[in-house]
């Protein structure tokens, strides 16, 4: 048996080396299966890594490794004086991929752009419901239906977007995967063949990699797009080996069965650092974990009480005990890697004595409260139950009696948005597009405090919301920065949340991998990676 196994391994190892030598094959041990390959109807990062990023492009793109917007399929653009008209000049000579049933007869043009947006925005568009039950949740949740008045073709290489009101984050919004440009010519061909759903099964895009095949829950294969308009990928084949368990992903990485993996377990970080065949990239994540008080219920409607509670909780202990040190304490609701982060803001110090005195001064004694601990693990919060326990302990030292409550995830999300909610909620957020508005307006504006929003502090501060609104309609980034900086000062002063931490992201890879660029948005893209011989 021993002999046989060695034989088997020898055969496969040999085969692997020859295969890798002939064509550069890069294997990514991805964490889950994509929901589909049409980038617009889905919302998970896993799906974007498998469809939007490798296969497609957008009018604007995020500059590698940043959240800065740069030209993509649009070479340049002009914004009208009042900020409601965006005219995009499209790049010429961009080729769509081909597959065994489709070969494009024309280059990318304005028809593709109009098609890609109208199918999402117009409920009567013939492609809006090309698969029964399909919806465009990202398009909807970025408020695009209310924002976009029309998308028009001016000529083959010019497209004009008219908005209902000015919106500074618009250029960042359309750099997101849901706004990927699909081929109208391919859609027409599929419609003629009566296989519309193949837009989601066998995608055609303009991106750095061409889709080859997907075996459900197992493997996705891509090939380099030799005609790519940007810098061509350095690897020939890209393979996603779907591996849901993080310990198994690490074993595969160590065994050389893949070159790079996402989301290592915090407990494995030390062993990864100690392994010579591996290296570990890290960067601060574009996220925040927080505890949101219900600011509409006494005594939490008093900012001084909220501040006192914030001072009673030892964040450093949470970062060590829950994040295993892989995070930095948060003082603002947006992370330090985001533009307009106000570093001048002073965090409330950890000072149980002062906290106790403040509570007494406000007449709050024998306070009893609930702490909601979410039942799932998220990059911004690895273990909410443990965090809640540490908070409970800290609060007991200032005479506050805290009980921990939890619900099933779906229940948790809905119950925590019920207006009279009892207690403070642990939750967090990961940015979609790097715009501060995507944190502040979504999580803390007056609008988001209504039913269906995500403002779990129910905090509505007119001054704060006005600043956000001003910033939203201002296109000058320096001016927007000032407005957001002011907003952060108000936030700190009013303390609707305890800002807990911004967690660090880690990406382990084999040492022969070069050129991988971590994305602050948490995307995994491979057009720049290379393998040493």
């Amino acid at each position: 048996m021993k002999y046989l196994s060695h034989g088997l391994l020898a055969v496969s190892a040999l085969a692997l080396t020859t295969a890798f030598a002939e064509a550069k094959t890069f294997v990514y041990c991805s964490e889950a299966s994509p929901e589909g390959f049409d980038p617009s109807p889905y919302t998970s990062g896993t799906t974007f890594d498998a469809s939007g990023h490798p296969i497609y492009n957008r009018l604007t793109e995020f500059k590698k490794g940043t959240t800065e917007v740069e030209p993509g399929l649009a070479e340049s653009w002009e914004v009208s004086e009042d900020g409601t008209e965006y005219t995009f000049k499209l790049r010429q000579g961009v080729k769509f991929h081909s597959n065994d049933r489709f070969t494009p007869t024309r280059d990318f043009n304005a028809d593709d752009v109009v098609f890609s947006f109208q199918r999402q925005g117009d409920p009567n568009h013939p492609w809006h419901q090309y698969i029964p039950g399909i919806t465009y949740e990202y398009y909807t949740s970025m408020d695009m239906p209310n924002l976009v008045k029309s998308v028009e073709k001016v000529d083959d290489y010019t497209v004009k977007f008219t908005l209902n009101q000015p919106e500074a984050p618009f250029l960042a919004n359309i750099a997101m995967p849901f706004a990927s440009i699909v081929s109208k010519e391919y859609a027409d061909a599929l419609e003629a063949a009566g296989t519309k759903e193949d837009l989601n099964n066998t995608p055609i895009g303009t991106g750095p990699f061409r889709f080859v095949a997907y075996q459900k829950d197992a493997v996705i294969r891509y090939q380099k797009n030799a005609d790519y308009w940007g810098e061509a990928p350095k690897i020939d084949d890209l393979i996603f080996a779907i591996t849901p368990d993080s310990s198994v992903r690490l074993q595969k990485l160590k065994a050389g069965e893949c070159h790079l993996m996402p989301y290592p377990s915090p407990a494995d970080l030390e062993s990864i650092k100690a392994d010579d065949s591996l290296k570990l990239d890290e960067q601060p994540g574009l996220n925040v974990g927080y505890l949101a008080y219900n600011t509409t219920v006494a005594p939490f409607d008093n900012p001084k009480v909220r501040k006192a509670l914030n001072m009673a909780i030892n964040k450093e202990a949470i970062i060590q005990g829950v994040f295993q040190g892989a995070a930095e304490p948060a003082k603002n609701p947006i992370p330090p890697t985001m533009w307009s982060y106000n570093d001048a803001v002073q965090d409330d110090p950890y000072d149980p004595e002062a906290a106790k005195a403040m509570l007494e001064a406000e007449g709050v004694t024998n306070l009893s409260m609930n702490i909601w601990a979410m039942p799932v693990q998220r990059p911004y919060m690895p273990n909410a139950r443990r965090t809640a326990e540490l908070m409970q302990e800290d609060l007991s030292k200032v005479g506050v009696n805290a009980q921990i409550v939890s619900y099933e995830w779906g229940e948790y999300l809905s119950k925590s948005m019920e207006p009279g909610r009892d207690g403070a909620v642990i939750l967090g957020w990961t940015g979609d597009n790097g715009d501060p508005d995507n944190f502040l307006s979504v999580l803390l504006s007056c609008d988001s405090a209504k039913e269906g929003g995500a403002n779990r502090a129910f905090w509505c501060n007119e001054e704060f919301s006005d600043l956000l609104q001003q910033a939203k309609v201002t296109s000058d980034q320096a001016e927007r920065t000032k407005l957001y900086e002011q907003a952060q000062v108000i936030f700190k002063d009013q303390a609707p949340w305890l800002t807990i931490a911004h967690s660090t992201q880690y990406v382990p890879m084999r040492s022969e991998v070069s050129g991988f660029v971590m994305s602050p948005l948490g995307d995994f893209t491979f057009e720049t990676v290379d393998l040493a011989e």
Partner: protein
Amino acid sequence: MVRFLLSKLLYLIPTFLGITIVAFGFVRILPGDPVLLMAGERGVSPERHAELSAQLGFDKPVVMQYFDFLGRLLQGDLGNSLVTKKPVLTEFLALFPATVELGLCAILIATLIGVPVGVLAAIKRGSWFDQISMTSALVGFSMPIFWWGLLLIIFFSGFLGWTPVSGRISLMYYFPQVTGFMLIDSLISGQEGAFTSAVSHLILPSVVLATIPLAVIARQTRSAMLEVMGEDYVRTARAKGMPRRRVIGVHALRNAMIPVVTTIGLQIGVLIAGAILTETIFSWPGIGKWMIDSISRRDYPVVQSGLLLIAGMVMVVNLLVDLTYGLINPRIRAS
């Protein structure tokens, strides 16, 4: 024999109806709303929530939803996944062969090792072999599968480097799926080394999945053999001077096999349960992992129709087990 078969088949109808209710009810009893889970931290406005619920048919009374489900079922429509929007049957058929391949290998390992070990332990009752094998069986039976799988991966794949960590075949092999069974497809592909690669990928997961059934089968075989060995006809056969091998192989084993076959049949359910964890650890693209993912996303159509398909399959296996009895024991056929 035909009447026996017909009566068994008649029983299947009420059982099947019962299963539709359980399958339909199970996922709805769980708290959590698929629309909210889709929206996540961002939240969804009440209007949008109502719109989406209506689109998915969740606004109707539950009883109506059940009859809709049943009605479509009778037309052979198992519904579409809420997540991937693809027909449940298409997804099931794509993943099912992987689970069958793994399950068959596991049950084969469990039977081929479990039965002989049980027989030997019974014959050599009280010996060191009996002691060791029955203690191991107890340990195997109590093994947490997830931990066991990870342990084997770390030792055999990580430390010794004998077997691949996970997956069904080395990624360098790429050929179209014909049957969905990797062992067969790799042979058909004619690519050199593909079959051995598929076999090497199958070893660890099948051993892990076989662990609990193997323990159960070995213990069941041993106790059935011990019981039969004490019967009069075995003593008579021995007294007649029949060779020991023939007494054990023909007289004892055949009778002892009746409860053992039942046990093996019952292990199918255990296999499905074990497949959920085994498939997750070994990144095995089968129906176990698919069900778990769908339950956590509250993908109602997949869970209800998936459970139904799995239950239907278990029913067919049980029917086959009943028929096998008939072959082993003519008395059952007659009654």
